[in-house]
């Protein structure tokens, strides 16, 4: 299979029904994408496929053939959202953070608090109580 991963063409070998999550972590070696619940409830494994946020635990690897996949690594080390999450202490244990940040990148410029709350409703955080996350997203988008 062949797809664009963070702007670079990759050709990992994986069974077609393998979870995209596992292909990213095991075949592609990008462990920034976390497994939380493994059933689409928590959003920890969120990645972008052609710009849309999806749970990579629910995507058959074969379906990204020819698509563009963005993981947290693809945002680089100097992304405004990453800085805002650090500044506002929007991350504690950090497991939900890559998914939170990737989903936040899809909310458009200057989203309202209501839009942020609804947009991030599929990303669960068990540490922060969300308020610091919302502040970070408001600050950086």
């Amino acid at each position: 299979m062949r797809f664009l991963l963070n702007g670079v063409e990759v050709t990992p070998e994986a069974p077609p029904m393998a979870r995209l999550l596992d292909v990213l972590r095991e075949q592609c070696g990008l462990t920034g994408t976390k497994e939380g619940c493994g059933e689409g409830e928590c959003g920890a494994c969120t990645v972008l496929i052609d710009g849309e946020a999806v749970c990579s635990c629910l995507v058959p690897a074969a379906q990204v053939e020819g698509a563009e996949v963005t993981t947290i690594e693809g945002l680089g080390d100097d992304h405004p959202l990453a800085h805002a999450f650090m500044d506002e202490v929007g991350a504690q244990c950090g497991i939900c953070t890559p998914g939170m940040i990737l989903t936040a990148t899809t909310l458009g410029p200057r989203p309202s608090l209501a839009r942020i709350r609804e947009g991030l409703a599929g990303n669960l955080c068990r540490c922060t109580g969300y308020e610091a996350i919302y502040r970070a997203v408001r600050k950086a988008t």
Partner: protein
Amino acid sequence: MRTAVSTLTLLRPRTLSQALRLLADEEPPVPLAGATDLYVALNAGTLEGSRFLDLWSLGPLRRITMRGGTLSIGALATYTALRKSRHVRRHLPMLSAAAREVGGLQIQNRGTLGGNVANGSPAGDTLPVLAAAEAVVVLRSRAGERRVPFGAYYTGYRESVRRPDELIVAIEVPPVEGVQWFRKVGTRAAQAISKVVMAGVRGPAPRLALGSVAPTVVRLPRTEAALARGDLEAGARALAEEIHPIDDVRSTADYRRGVAVNLLRRFWADTDPATRR
């Protein structure tokens, strides 16, 4: 994850006719699109079947169009597409409302209307909407196409009239006369499966459909008849007899019964022509 994925086959047709040919096989593969239900079973190790049919790339099945007064929604239209569609917002706003409350963004980007119908969970969020709208399920096979009224589609718990060689290709919705209403009651707004979900239409002949209160989504003819007479109290009594909720992991039969009656009253108050501007 409790399934060995290397043992599974995924067939990837490029066109609908290729897909239908593969489905006509003696042992038809299991259709799969956004996989948001299927991969939950994959993770749990309860997935049935070992051959799957990937429909995700069949673009023509994503279209949402108006033909005459009929809204036609391709089976592969995602919840995100339903939320964005002007046709859906204008002609079937209760479906926009339902799509908005399915899962979170990630699920809405992948889950499809056809998949919600095919999965056939009694808790499926869009199903009361389709029941109240008197939608039609368009099934296609190599032998041709047939249209099944939504009220005749399910035959039991997760069972339907769809033959293994048939694919749901579209949902058609005739014009709906009256004020549309939708409400889902769950543990939280997003990512929760409903305890009770209701769709209603307040027009010349009121219509009501509920999910999570019986083995399939249900219409409530006796309740509707009482409402048509303007008798809300008789409607509430009929409703309690027309639903058959159970105790399960998400709720209890008693709670569901109570909430269903409350929703009926809320529907009637919210859609009261005297108080609506």
